[in-house]
């Protein structure tokens, strides 16, 4: 009995003397309510489910449990900033602002606070220049990569020649929607295609004028840069004027189930560019089923698993977790800080072997982040909708963008930002 007491006291003493292992905190600025909830819910579910999986299956990252703090932004910039302010003191390691507007507001704040931001496929495009934006990362791709990726795909489809072709851009009339214009104008000059710009006012429920113009001008291809209700409305209008779906390509924010389901069978063949794979045919989903869903720990209603935006959330969480592991390896501690996390993100290497080991083979492109390049290689694949089976499938490999056009744009924009804010190069 005495021996047992002694052992208990000894264990308690050792535990008290050991450093306290805090959680690794990953805030999730989600939007499960409001106009864009249909897009926000699956992403938030995917992000949360992956960290739940790591906790349940692996005991966290490097032995330290993860904790997702979800804060509702309703896709509202002010609320997003409030969420940041209210959660950063919890030991936040990295923020996914999940909105271009919120990202712009958080760039100076997070940089001053030393907390990294990962605006994956959105936000300030020139943040890809790590020399200027020390704490902002937008790997594996940004808007300009997407624009170039779409044009490269069209080049492939047209035997490398777009000279004289007519391409229309239907875009959300906002800073987000206007992002690809400069890149497409440069590419238009380079490849000789004619570019028609068609702005759609927020929220995008009324697009009759734009599609009447498309019907009159009959462009060879239509590119869409939309979000929310603008996407299904545009696809529906395209069906109404009998525009071929095979010639209609959206950016990755115009390529989820939400955008095509409402249009029914007519949406068959619609395409979108993506920076991650689609569907649930990956071993990681078996683990999610076993350790998350069957354990009753799925986020939300658990009914979004395998959808495009769920996979995007899952992918974002995987990249965050891998960066945290990298940070633990670099600094030799399990309980990392935001500054260490930043180092981990800057040294992140995603290889095919690593993704396969995680149960996510070919889930996204292989890439490496460096001090200079926070944007990754910008590889994009084309996905196509099959209305009958209600599934997306990849119809190309991950393709390279035209960095000869994009890099000067990134350099010019980031240099202007650096000059405005007196930022010294960090690399």
């Amino acid at each position, binding site marked *: 009995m005495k021996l047992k007491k002694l052992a208990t006291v000894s264990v308690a003493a050792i535990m008290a003397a050991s450093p306290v292992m805090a959680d690794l905190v990953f805030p999730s600025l989600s939007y*499960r*309510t*409001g*106009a*864009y*909830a*249909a897009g926000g*819910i699956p992403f938030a579910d995917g992000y949360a489910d992956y960290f739940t999986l790591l906790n349940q299956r692996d005991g966290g990252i490097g032995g330290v449990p993860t904790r997702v703090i979800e804060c509702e932004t309703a896709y509202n910039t002010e609320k997003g900033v409030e969420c940041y302010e209210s959660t950063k003191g919890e030991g936040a390691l990295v923020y996914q602002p999940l909105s271009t507007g919120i990202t712009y507001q958080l760039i100076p704040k997070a940089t001053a606070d030393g907390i990294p931001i990962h605006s994956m496929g959105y936000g300030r495009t020139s943040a890809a220049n790590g020399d200027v934006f020390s704490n902002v990362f937008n790997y594996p791709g940004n808007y300009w990569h997407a624009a170039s990726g779409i044009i490269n795909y069209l080049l492939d489809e047209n035997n490398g020649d777009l000279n004289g072709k007519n391409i229309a851009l239907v875009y959300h*009339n906002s800073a987000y929607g206007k992002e690809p214009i400069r890149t497409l104008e440069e590419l238009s000059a380079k490849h000789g295609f004619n570019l028609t*710009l*068609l*702005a*759609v*006012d*927020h*929220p*995008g*429920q*009324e697009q*009759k*004028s*734009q599609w*009447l*113009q498309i*019907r*009159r001008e*009959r462009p060879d291809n239509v590119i869409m840069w939309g979000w*929310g*209700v603008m996407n*299904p*409305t545009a696809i*529906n*209008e395209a*069906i*109404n*004027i*009998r525009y071929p779906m095979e010639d209609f390509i959206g950016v990755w924010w115009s390529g989820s*189930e*939400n*955008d095509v*389901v*409402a*249009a*029914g069978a007519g949406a068959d063949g619609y395409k979108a560019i993506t920076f991650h794979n689609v569907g649930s045919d990956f071993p990681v989903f078996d683990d999610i089923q076993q350790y998350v869903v069957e354990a*009753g720990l799925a986020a939300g*209603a658990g*009914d979004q698993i395998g959808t495009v935006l769920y996979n995007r959330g899952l992918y974002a969480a995987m990249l965050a977790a891998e960066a945290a592991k990298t940070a633990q390896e670099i600094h030799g501690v399990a309980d990392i800080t935001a500054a260490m996390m930043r180092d981990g993100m800057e040294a992140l290497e995603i290889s095919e072997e690593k993704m396969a080991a995680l149960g996510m083979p070919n889930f996204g492109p292989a890439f490496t982040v460096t001090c200079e390049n926070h944007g990754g290689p910008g590889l994009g694949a084309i996905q196509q909708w099959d209305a009958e089976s209600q599934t997306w499938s990849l119809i190309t490999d991950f393709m390279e963008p035209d960095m000869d056009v994009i890099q000067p744009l990134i350099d010019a924009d980031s240099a202007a930002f650096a000059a405005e804010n007196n930022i010294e190069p960090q690399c």
Partner: protein
Amino acid sequence: MSADFLNLLEVAINGLMAGVLYSLVALGFVLIFKASGVFNYAQGVMALFAAQTLVGIQTGQVPFAHLINAIFGTEVHYFGWNVPALLAILFTVLVMILFAWIVVKVILVRLVGQEPIILFMATIGLAYFMEGFGDMMWNSEVKRLDVGIPSGGSFWIEDVTVQWAAEGERYFGMYVDVLDIWATVIAVALVASLAAFAQYTKPGRAMRAVADDPTAALSVGISLNKIWIMVWSLAGFVAIVAGIMWGAKSGVQFSLSLIALKALPVLMLGGFTSISGAIVGGLIIGVGEKLFEYLIGVPFLGGATENWFAYVLALIFLVFRPQGLFGEKIIERV
């Protein structure tokens, strides 16, 4: 005829069709404002809720499935049946009548005699409550709405009009969406029915009496409660029609509630108290914004002018007729 002229005609006709859809939304506002003096901020959300309910009933969705599953650990989402469109519409009408009854009994009756601004604030609260309630009841996924109304450009109109173009002109025929034609027919029938109801039926006359002078109407034995329930039910029915037409275009999702924004310039222009004002106002706004976008917006201003131009147009009318085209001029003596 030249292709340019035919294109202009096409834009104008499509503007008229869009105007009919705006009018459908505006009608709901007018009905409630006429009978109770309340500007119903929740009208757009009512259209969303009606469309969500219609799709939910049609596809056999289990209401509050997420809540039920979370509490009882079940996995129920659908009953496994499909309800025919007409029957589903009928059930939705019943739901909207129940909704009207609850709104009147729980909110309006308790606010009798309050300032209009208080009633307006109450409808703002109602709108936000319904947004959340609708999402909780039917979830916030984007849903397909199909009640069998055809959509897409009319081949017949295209074939006929393509011959109108002069030889050598690059013209593909006039585009008119069949769904818009249906919307126009339904809107005309709806307005004619409402006008006949108000003019020739006893409850309709009672509704007009309440609209003219609530106190006098009460003194002759007209029940304010019943009239309000009837008017909110009618507005609910208009919301169903608007929800079907708009939902068929862009799917049933949260943004359906924002169609109320398209009704505001129509109301400013047509007046808050006139059914015919809502119709004419809708047509003027529809044609005006589409022609402006085609003639000036796209060539000179980079496009996307429709939203703001609708309000500019309404403001221009307001300067000359503050009560709107068909609104009643209110004179208050000091």
